[in-house]
């Protein structure tokens, strides 16, 4: 194939594309019916999104919304790519960070002028900004820490709020461990060694966030990863692993949350507010009354909760202007109108990433914790979405951390593999 041939193909496609866009614009007079399609990857909220869409349709009779949700075993990006290449691209789709921001660049409309973007909490748009423009709107914010069992801590006479430094945590863990039988627990922690992301995303972020100002975009673009706080991470990982229910390397998410924590066998686990529905399903009384969340103590970040966004909405700029406008209006309505806000909090159980929700009550104790820390500005950002879409995450960070955890590799080697791996990936991406 010579270059000329592809040039021609490109030219023809471009011309055809322009013609189509022009034709579409011609049709789009203001009061006509408009249909927007949504493809989103939070499958657990499928029903709620559909309810919200139909509520919007009732209030705006000229708008039709079709919601498709993907998730469970299916990955989002391949499906979106298939839809785009088969000419069936959605009007609203989702992004999960800088890597997908770059990948779907040709389809992302500028959302800087939407009401929702203007109302977004400071920092929540950092990961989806490029050259001063905003291309994504956060679904929500989430936070993680140690989710703990209130009655176990009470029985042991420990106030979880007092565990503000590593030393205090260490002492409390040892006390809990020595009274295991009395407290009726199998272990202080339940560390899921099988779920590498629990270490590579959430734990690692605690010790990397500061280096990149909690900004995923900054990490994504950085040539270097210093990882100066690695000794602190080792300490925390060792503590969790040593006092965890064993065997650590056999434990997966279901074993950690469903079997151990929800049934009172672990005093605390490193997880986030997203586990609430799962705990609720197993023991709703326990979920409502008996669980809380505290920040994981990290030097210079004591008393702060890592809060961030894992999914953003994006609007397809290759659709007609009417359709884009309708999509933006819908997103604005969902996050900034009175009815929309109610749905976000009560139907979707989201912790809002936007201003204007002050004084509202969250639907469960864990999201309430995240909401309170956000309102008190006691948070720091998520830097890890800056690497989750890159090969480094699954081929370097995760296997190396698992190797360390199972005793196959020392910590220094693990750290150097990770930092070197990052440098070489960033170099070859140039």
């Amino acid at each position: 194939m010579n270059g000329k041939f592809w040039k021609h193909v490109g030219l023809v496609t471009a011309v055809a594309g322009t013609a189509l866009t022009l034709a579409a614009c011609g049709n789009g007079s203001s009061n006509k019916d408009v249909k927007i399609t949504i493809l989103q990857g939070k499958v657990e909220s499928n029903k709620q999104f559909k309810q919200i869409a139909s509520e919007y349709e009732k209030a705006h009779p000229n708008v039709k919304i079709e919601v498709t949700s993907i998730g469970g075993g299916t990955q989002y990006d391949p499906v979106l790519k298939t839809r785009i290449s088969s000419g069936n691209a959605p009007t609203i789709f989702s992004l999960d960070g800088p890597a997908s921001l770059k990948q779907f660049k040709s389809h992302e409309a500028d959302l800087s002028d939407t009401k929702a973007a203007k109302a977004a909490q400071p920092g929540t748009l950092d990961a989806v900004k490029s050259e001063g423009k905003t291309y994504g709107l956060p679904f929500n914010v989430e936070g993680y820490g140690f989710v703990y069992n209130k009655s176990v801590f009470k029985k042991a006479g420990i106030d979880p709020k007092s565990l503000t430094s590593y030393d205090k945590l260490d002492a409390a863990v040892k006390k809990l461990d020595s009274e295991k039988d009395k407290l009726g627990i199998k272990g202080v922690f339940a560390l899921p060694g099988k779920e590498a992301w629990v270490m590579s995303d959430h734990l690692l972020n605690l010790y990397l966030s500061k280096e990149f100002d909690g900004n995923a975009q900054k990490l994504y673009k950085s040539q270097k990863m210093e990882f100066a706080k690695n000794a602190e991470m080792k300490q925390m990982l060792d503590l969790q692993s040593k006092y965890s229910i064993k065997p650590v390397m056999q434990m997966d998410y279901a074993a950690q949350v469903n079997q151990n924590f929800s049934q009172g066998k672990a005093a605390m686990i490193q997880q986030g507010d997203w586990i609430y529905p799962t705990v609720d399903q197993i023991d709703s009384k326990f979920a409502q009354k008996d669980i809380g969340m505290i920040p994981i103590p990290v030097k210079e970040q004591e008393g702060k909760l890592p809060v961030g966004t894992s999914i953003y909405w994006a609007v397809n700029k290759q659709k007609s202007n009417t359709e884009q406008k309708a999509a933006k209006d819908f997103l604005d309505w969902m996050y900034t109108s009175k009815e929309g806000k109610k749905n976000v909090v009560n139907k979707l159980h989201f912790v809002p990433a936007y201003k204007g929700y002050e004084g509202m009550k969250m639907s469960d104790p864990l999201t309430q914790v995240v909401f309170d820390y956000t309102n008190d500005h006691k948070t720091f950002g998520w830097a890890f979405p800056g690497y989750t879409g890159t090969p480094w995450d699954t081929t370097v960070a995760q296997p190396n951390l698992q190797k360390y955890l199972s005793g196959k590799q020392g910590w220094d080697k693990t750290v150097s593999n990770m930092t070197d791996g990052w440098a070489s990936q960033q170099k070859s991406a140039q």
Partner: protein
Amino acid sequence: MKNRSLSFWLFLTPTLVALALVVFIPMLEGLFYSFTDWDGLSFTKMVGFKNYITLLQDKAFVNAFWFTVAFVIVTVILLNVIGLGLALLVTQKFKGSNFLRAIFFMPNMIGGLILGFIWQFIFTQGFDALGSALHLSWLQNWLTNETTGFWGLVIVTVWQMSGYIMIIYIAYLQNIPNEVIEAAEIDGASPWQRFTKITFPMIAPAFTVCMFLTLSNGFKIYDQNLSLTNGGPYNSTQMLAMDIVNTAYNASNFSLAEAKAMVFFLIVAAISLVQVLYNRRREVDL
């Protein structure tokens, strides 16, 4: 070859079209994309053999390759030995032999994904309980390192597929004419001689078929791998098919994944063809 009439083509066309649509065209497309920087959506330039050079230096791919080769060698041997053994057992005349055939074949009717999850439970919970009851430490901590992950995969595959291989051997065993065996018996051949000198050569075509099936299946295995170990711990039990899928979908490196898939195809095709040609020559006709 002469009677390629209209009806010949009429009957062949649907199959050819279907094959072309789902196999040949995608393959050519894949071959093309493996020389580009395709990201699953678009590509900006041709990169020549860059992807092929990258994959040779890709530790994960090389590791997956040797893991898969070891897995194939072990499962091909075990599957054929056990499959043939079961076939010989159930072709003996005794009560319940038909019942046993059904039992041995049954694992094959469960899908690989479900099977993987069931066995994951057996390995992690069942083995663990047994190990602590009998004080056998080697029964504990299964699937937490490369060795137990490997043998876990082997056990599941052999357990699932040997019934299927057995059925093929049964079919060929039953085709051996009784007169030949009887004649040998009259001539005073011992049971072992009858097996090695008559039965074994007579079922040589079954070997060709079974070797082909077990070989290509061993290379292409994905679902058991996914549900049993998901490549873990630390990607050490990741087989070729899984490495390719992960390169494409987790690391979003579609063109590299295409190149890997091409290499994968060439390996499987070459080994399977050599095997078939070699075994064909050993087959005997009556």
